[in-house]
């Protein structure tokens, strides 16, 4: 079940939600947990560093840098930044892959905030099972806690079959056993865990197994990338939010015969590109998602 903004709000019963220009309050409600505090983090995704088709993005060499500068100019600096995969454009040449990763890492390290959580995309890790990625960005699946929220990073790209794999699913199950059922959990991943559109490889082959493991937990939110556009979906009580990319937008699922980038629009530079901030609220246990274009703050008229 895919939904647009309006449908999504109806779906999750957010009629009483507070909306501010450019922000939306999204579900993930839980009681206030001792030790929990408000915090802000930023999601960047799909920079595809190394991509160089000027018809798709004539500013391919500077778009990521603009995003980094924009995050640095935020009045309220995030506690950390997550990068949900496809940091680099894939290449068959392992040396070029590493060169791109080194360059991208240097650019991203220009962030004022120094806590950056990296995820791999299939462009980063699909041809060498994540070997180069791990050299430059660390593990491909892991957990971390921040102010009362448990973050779980799932790797669904290092296996070229778009799978998480039984070993990692066992690990996920073991990690979840350590967490109370009413804890707040944010899952970070590259591909959608649900079957968004398998014809375009917008799915995770064994994603349903991960969702089954997460289902008993009351307060789970999934943030992912891969599809280069904002998208919102519910599997039962679990919301899934896809982020825009930082190199080129992709069309809506199935709207074209082939999954090809939307060409650059000179009349609307950077259209469809952007990043988001996520504000975790302790008092009301809410996540406020704010979508930003590469330049000016986006105004959402609902």
């Amino acid at each position, binding site marked *: 079940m895919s939904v647009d903004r309006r449908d999504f709000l109806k779906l999750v019963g957010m009629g009483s939600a507070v909306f501010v220009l450019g922000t939306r309050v999204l579900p993930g409600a839980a009681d206030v947990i001792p030790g929990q505090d408000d915090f802000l983090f930023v999601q960047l995704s799909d920079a595809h560093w190394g991509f160089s088709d000027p018809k798709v993005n004539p500013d391919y060499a500077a778009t990521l840098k603009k995003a980094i500068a924009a995050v640095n100019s935020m009045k309220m600096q995030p506690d950390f930044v997550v990068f949900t995969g496809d940091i680099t454009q894939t290449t068959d040449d392992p040396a070029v892959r590493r060169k791109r990763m080194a360059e991208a890492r240097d650019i991203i390290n220009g962030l004022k905030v120094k806590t950056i959580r990296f995820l791999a995309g299939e*462009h980063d890790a699909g041809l060498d099972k994540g070997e180069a990625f791990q050299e430059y960005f660390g593990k491909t699946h892991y957990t971390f806690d921040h102010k009362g929220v448990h973050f779980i990073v799932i790797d669904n790209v290092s296996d*070229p*079959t778009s799978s998480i794999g039984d070993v990692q699913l066992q690990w996920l199950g073991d990690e979840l056993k350590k967490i109370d059922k009413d804890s707040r959990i944010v899952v970070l991943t590259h591909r959608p865990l649900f079957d968004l559109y*398998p*014809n375009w*490889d917008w799915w995770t082959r064994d994603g349903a197994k991960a969702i089954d493991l997460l289902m008993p937990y009351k307060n789970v939110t999934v943030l992912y990338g891969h599809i280069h556009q904002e998208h919102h979906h519910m599997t039962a009580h679990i919301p899934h939010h896809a982020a825009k990319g930082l190199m080129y937008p992709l069309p809506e699922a199935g709207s074209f015969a*082939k999954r090809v980038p939307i060409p650059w629009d000179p009349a609307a530079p950077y259209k469809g590109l952007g990043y988001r901030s996520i504000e975790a609220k302790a008092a009301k246990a809410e996540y406020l998602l704010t979508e930003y274009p590469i330049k000016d703050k986006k105004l959402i008229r609902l």
Partner: protein
Amino acid sequence: MIQQKKGLWLVLALVMVSIMMSVPAVPLHAEDQAEGDQVIRITAKRFEYIPSEIRIQKGVPVVLEFTSLDRIHGFTIPDLGGIRTTIEPGKVSRVRIVVPTVGTYEFHCDLFCGDGHEGMTGKIIVED
């Protein structure tokens, strides 16, 4: 009791009918080719299938026979029950399908194979 049994059988029958009606095709995963099956040979290479458009007859068993010219590729038709195979260089992979419903079914490579993988697609057109 008898009424309950009748009800149970009715439910089972309805379930069976609904399953049959919800499956648009009956892909047969058997690797073996039956005698008389039509064979369509498909070459996979980065980042295309040759041919990429395949026409078959409704209800007629067809064996798709794959070879790869370069590296491992995948082949899947999500709308036919997710039928798939892996295509390895130096090996022949086969998928036998019988599609009882007229229509166009997209297929693609489901093993990430490099810069252009997203465009490695094709379609099977099932005709009367």
